[in-house]
């Protein structure tokens, strides 16, 4: 299954903030976790995670520090800020609303079944 670019982009911020809410982490580990959580369905272009992290840092939702773990490489670790937690709660409310609304749709229109990708989707 291919998840469209827009959807990936929209869900990226709450995913990253949610992962960081569990504790500080670094780029590669965040990406792994997104991969695990989505069962490998949600695929990001690796590099694009970093501009996102930098944007969140600029907005003050996360903060970063370089650190060298014992026996490891120097790495940039990200940590969520209080402001980031507020943002995460807000995003969560928004997503809950969207998901609720969608759930309403799915239950009323039984005819929609994700059987085969439409032709215009297949080539992407």
């Amino acid at each position: 299954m291919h998840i469209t670019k827009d959807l990936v982009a929209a869900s990226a911020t709450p995913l990253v903030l949610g992962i960081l809410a569990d504790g500080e982490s670094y780029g590669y580990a965040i990406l792994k976790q997104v991969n695990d959580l989505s069962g490998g369905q949600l695929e990001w272009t690796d590099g694009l995670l970093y501009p996102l992290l930098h944007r969140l840092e600029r907005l003050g939702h996360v903060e970063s520090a370089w650190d060298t773990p014992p026996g490891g490489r120097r790495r940039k670790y990200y940590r969520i800020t209080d402001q980031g937690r507020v943002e995460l709660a807000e995003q969560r409310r928004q997503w809950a609303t969207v998901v609720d609304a969608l759930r309403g749709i799915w239950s009323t229109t039984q005819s929609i079944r994700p059987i085969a990708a439409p032709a215009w989707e297949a080539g992407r």
Partner: protein
Amino acid sequence: MTVDRDRDRDHDLEGQIAEWRAYMHRRRELHHTDAEELEDHLRSRISELTEGGLRDDEAFLIAVKRMGSLDELSREFAREHSERLWKQLVLPAEPDAPTAARSRRELPVMVLCAAVAALAIKVPGWFGLDLSGEDDAGFYARNISLFALPALAAYFAWQRRVGLRVIAVLASLFVLGAVAANVYPLADDSQSIVLAAIHLPIALWLVVGVAYVGGDWRSDRRRMDFIRFTGEWLIYFALLGLGGGVLTVFTAGTFKAIGLDAGEFIGSWLLPCGAMAAVIVSAWLVEAKQSVIENMAPVLTRVFTPLFAATLLAFLVAVIWTNNGIDVERDVLILFDLLLVIVLGLLLYAISARDLTARPGLFDRLQLALVVSALIIDVLVLVAITGRITEWGFSPNKTAALGENLILLTNLAWSAWLFLGFIRGRMPFASLERWQTRYLTVYAVWAWAVVLAFPLVFDFA
């Protein structure tokens, strides 16, 4: 056997990663730290893939592919960090660089050196030598370079971590300069004192050059760096001077508005201390901004070379057309010395920024035209002057002016010859560069000779 192969493979992988890193560094949108962060990611991905059974090169390819196209990546980074496309002017914005500890100390050390320079000019005041008074003007004129330049040399000595031997050379040259400036019994209105006031800064600036090149004064490349540094330093110094002028005007104006006269403070603190500190701060700015902003000297050179060439050619045409001889007055020699200095400066900064392997172009021909017309004009002046030199006799001023004229003439004449060879494709450009960097020695010898020997030769006139 297998160990060897493993090592080979590791070597390959490191080489590939290094290449990738170099590729990243070429992108202006990506800072050094971003590249480092991405490299960490790349390595994590590669080790995961190799643990899964892939070979190093396969893992590398997949990891790079998954990183996304560099164009897309740069675009995203540029969108997020648009300020980077504007060259940053404030402080080195990369505290995470490997030499962080030292560059963090750079600023305090620079401030310390600037403070030392600023206070040094106040020290003679404690011994009753009045900075603003008429009586001691001669003392300050002779010693002006001895306040800031030792601090500047010390800053570079610290920054370049020069050895004890070089420090000893630097210290003894500064002591020599101080002795030469103060030991000779020169009257305040003598010509020699003016000459010392002009030439000691030049001599000591070249001593600073020794510190700048970290004691490696035999290296042509390092000397060229010092020439570049000198030009950029002048520009920064002028800019700081402009800012200082605005500050002075506002200080005077605002205090005047409340009925206080700040003139005393400005004259004895703000201007002298500010100027001395600016010497150090400009040097630090040049170093800190070396790679960050475009070098200004070559840009100005590009703009003014054609203009000066046109002016000099017009002057030559006017001389021939009107058949007017050059009116040889006392100051004319100095004027033409300065003209040669400017032409030499234009030549030097054109050289300093030139790609040594590039083929000669239109600009080089313009440069040659500039040098040749300056030479012809100078020869005309010299011919006009030699007739009258016997009439004047040799005073220190005239000897110095004539000597400088000959030194610059020699430099430019040989430069023109080398330039011609280059334009005809017979000589590599590097030979011109080498000639200019070697010639620095001549300036040093001459400046020291004027400071040390002229008072003796001319009997302290």
